[in-house]
């Protein structure tokens, strides 16, 4: 469903991604691991359309559509959804309002009617319970005054409500304690579906103990240096990244 081909991306003149290739099929969960500065966050930012990243060559297609030609909101409406590493605070805007506006924008893009209020409340309450979040979260301003863990749960809550075709999670596990990690992992697991895909960008193998990836990629110096199954994640945890780099340049 997602096909990244020979992607070269520069930020302020310096090349971060240097010919990245990635294929993710429906129903698969992929993890991208790699050392700091390898370009992990750049990849998810470029796929979701964040400004400030210059694609110098290569292509990204999602279900046959040229992603680089789409506006940010069109990508989301097509089902490509990014969970932020650092979710943004929006003072004065209630969480529930953002959720509803986002859901209805996506429905409108699919030619569907706005969701009726009772149905929406039922849906949100169910997902809140799944994320072990208090209903008072809905009435608070988006991410304002949320703890690190609450922000991350909120990202997954949005995913559960919006039900993306492909969920991209950028370091969703950073700053989570064990309990929150389990809740977040359960949330991600509930997104697993033969029709959908999940792309997890992470530093550590910790999250992958709870969310088993089908494919693990190692991103080093702007390229996928190695691809394997979940065993690769364990290997990286014990051996670090150096050997992958040596192996790939050898």
């Amino acid at each position: 469903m997602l096909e990244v081909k020979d992607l070269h991306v520069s930020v302020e003149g310096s090349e971060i991604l240097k010919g990245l290739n990635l294929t993710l099929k429906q129903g698969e969960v992929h993890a991208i691991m790699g050392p700091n500065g390898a370009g992990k966050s750049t990849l998810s930012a470029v796929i979701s359309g964040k400004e400030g990243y210059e694609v110098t060559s290569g292509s990204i297609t999602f279900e046959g559509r040229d992603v680089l030609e789409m506006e940010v909101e069109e990508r989301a409406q097509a089902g490509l959804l990014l969970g932020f590493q650092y979710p943004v605070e929006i003072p004065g805007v209630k969480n529930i309002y953002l959720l509803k506006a986002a859901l209805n924008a996506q429905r409108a893009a699919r030619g569907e009617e706005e969701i009726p209020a009772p149905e929406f409340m039922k849906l949100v309450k169910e997902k809140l319970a799944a994320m072990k979040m208090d209903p008072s979260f809905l009435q608070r301003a988006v991410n304002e005054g949320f703890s690190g863990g609450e922000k991350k749960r909120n990202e997954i809550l949005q995913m559960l409500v919006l039900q993306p075709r492909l969920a991209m999670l950028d370091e969703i596990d950073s700053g989570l304690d064990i309990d929150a990690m389990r809740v977040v992992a359960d949330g991600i697991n509930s997104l697993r579906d033969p029709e959908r895909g999940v792309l997890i960008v992470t530093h550590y193998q910790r999250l992958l103990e709870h969310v088993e990836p089908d494919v693990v990629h190692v991103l080093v110096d702007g390229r996928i240096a190695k691809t394997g199954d979940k065993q690769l994640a364990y290997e990286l945890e014990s051996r670090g990244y150096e050997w992958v780099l040596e192996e790939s340049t050898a």
Partner: protein
Amino acid sequence: MASEEMEQLVRREYTQGFVTDIESDTVPPGLDESTIAFISEKKGEPEWMLEWRLEAYHQWLKMTTPSWAHLNYPPIDYQAISYYSAPKKPEDRPQSLDEVDPKLLETYEKLGIPLHERAALAGVAVDAVFDSVSVTTTFKEQLAEAGVIFCSISEAIRDYPELVKQYLGSVVPQGDNFFAALNSAVFTDGSFVYVPEGVTCPMELSTYFRINAANTGQFERTLIICEKQAQVSYLEGCTAPMRDENQLHAAVVELVALDDAKIKYSTVQNWYPGDEDGKGGIYNFVTKRGDCRGDRSHISWTQVETGSAITWKYPSCMLRGKDSIGEFYSVAVTNGRQQADTGTKMIHIGENTRSTIVSKGISAGRANQSYRGLVKVGPRAKNARNFTQCDSLLIGDTCGAHTYPYQEIGNSSSIVEHEATTSKIGEDQLFYCQSRGISEEDAVNMIVNGFCKDVFQELPMEFAVEAEALLNVTLEGAVG
């Protein structure tokens, strides 16, 4: 009206000569004692009122336009303005909504203005207006039952001269400032509200006013008096863009609150801002002041300012009574070439007086906006408290926001707090919303409305909803 047409009209009227004929409906442009006498006579005013106007006129002659505001506009020729003109005759007005600018209608639609009000707002001479006449009558009966007087200032001068004599100019004296003096000399209409002791006005004075707003003039004069323990909530203006042929507006609003009285005054101002270059927009120079004359009295100003090419406006509170409270909540939006210099003055005179200022300024396009606020605490105002929060939000990088807070503290037991922020609408916030599938325009609206929430929640419910819609329309095309 195009300036060419305006000129033609002016010239045509000029050829009719300077005779102030009481039968005619319009005076030629220009201002002198005979113009004022004409207005006063036309209104059927008593002698004392004419004298009061003339006093104001003589003070005005010695005054000059204030130049301290951060505003840029060509000098106004006060002799080129016609100071009295009767409403347009029905045959000169559009005969149906089909003749009205479709863009205007589109805006009404977006704002959710009820159908029967659209025609009235667009100046259409149709029976639609009659719908509202019956509504008006019902309201009037209800108010009369409660003993509340609510009428035009002209009627009040004729029917309640003692009240008017006692209070008119007691908050904003004739010579207060250049525009107030001009208004005092030539005001043609406005509203008068009197709430007797112990009475809480049985309704928001809103719908009534909106329907009648089409008749409000260029030099509007409003006087609201709340006796002891009385309460009123007054709503001025309208979210719909208002057509008006007069470029210069100089209104005066005076509020008087006696012991334990409470006045809540809400404004939504959406006068024509002019075209893309700011041409033809309204100049709005307003003097609004509330006098908390009684102990424990409470005056609250809430304003949403989105229209006009130029806004010069500082709704203020004189906190005389002990334990009296003054509040100012403001959202000002400028887009295109609009300029606004607005803020408030809180003058603490009595003991234990408290004031709150929350100002939210939003600038987009090539607009310029200033917050100007004075908090003055007199020597007798022991334990006075003020809290000021003043936030500016910039959209794009060709607009400007400025903050001019002034504080004069005359005793040591008072506490004055001031918080100010200026932020650019966050690229990160926009991206966050868009990456959820929300369009850029909706995202801007969402963020801006969130920014204004503290003020909107002070507005009466129905107005708050309209104000949000209005903000969205005003900021259309501000991004991208």
